[in-house]
């Protein structure tokens, strides 16, 4: 993955608009958050292969980015994205990593279901 370049990601998002796409969306602070800090809470959410069609997409931010997708019936967004990649299968992978390279949030869009 590479550091997000906003123009490139915006174009990639638009290339996937108005199509049936599959979404992977997750955020997590890890299963050990509370184990290592009794004041912390384990929080996470995960959906894989949600099929949607979005009509509008925007990436906004500076250094750390937000991506919002306006779908036919609602919205999808992710915050804290830092890196991106169009992989060899043409899937748009975006993720946010902390200073130690650990994944905090991921939003991925594909025209075929994720494995």
């Amino acid at each position, binding site marked *: 993955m590479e550091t997000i370049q906003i123009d490139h990601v915006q174009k990639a998002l638009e290339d996937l608009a108005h199509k049936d796409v599959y979404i992977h969306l997750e955020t997590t602070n890890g299963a050990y958050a509370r184990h290592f800090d009794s004041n912390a809470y384990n929080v996470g959410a995960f959906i894989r292969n949600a099929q949607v069609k979005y009509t509008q997409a925007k990436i906004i931010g500076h250094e750390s980015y937000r991506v919002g997708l306006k779908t036919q019936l609602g919205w999808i967004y992710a915050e804290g994205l830092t890196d991106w990649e169009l992989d060899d299968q043409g899937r748009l992978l975006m993720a946010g990593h902390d200073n130690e390279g*650990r994944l905090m949030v991921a939003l*991925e869009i594909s025209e075929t279901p*994720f494995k």
Partner: protein
Amino acid sequence: MGQHVAIILPHPDDEAFGCSGTILEFREKDIPVTYFCGTLGEMGRNMGSPFFANRETLPEIRKEELQDACKELDINLEMLGYRDKTLEFEDRNEVAKDLKQRLEEIEPSLVITFYPGHAVHPDHDAMGAAAIKAVEMMDESKRPEVWAKAITHNRRELLGEPDIVRDVEDYFEGKMRAIEAHRSQAEGMMKQFRDSPNLKEINSEGRKLLKYEEFYKWTF
């Protein structure tokens, strides 16, 4: 019944951090060891340090790391094919039934798994519970001993002293090699160890955790 040890843990690297010293000791005595690994750690947060994996490449990377670690430990590997973080939502009876079948094939004398309710990560708890259920479902005459690994902070308070405490100092280098085989996961943590000029002298909590492998004997 000859001796054979079955390790039942959910993530690639659980075996390395949790019981690889014990595994190496068994292998030195020529006792066969089979690792039933529940998932490929698909949902791991560590992507390498600096990161080289992404959510979609991580499973294949961790599979290779797991195979490397098992080569390092000289043990058999069976991958169970569940998905990381979803194990607790599977039908526990189905998981246990599948495990029971696999155990009956190798007729182990000992099973090492996580102590359900004392294993911190939901996959650890679920894998341990299914493993213990699988052994419970076995014919009593064929039932192996079970050593359960507890890692909660309050385990001594609630469970008492562990029945088995193994000092794996003599196998520490091999244990480190097994941990380092899981490059995407271990790099960050191990760098701290490697950077230390006096690895042997460190009395850090981390080193103590790695030096002593503790287990509770499960009573049925």
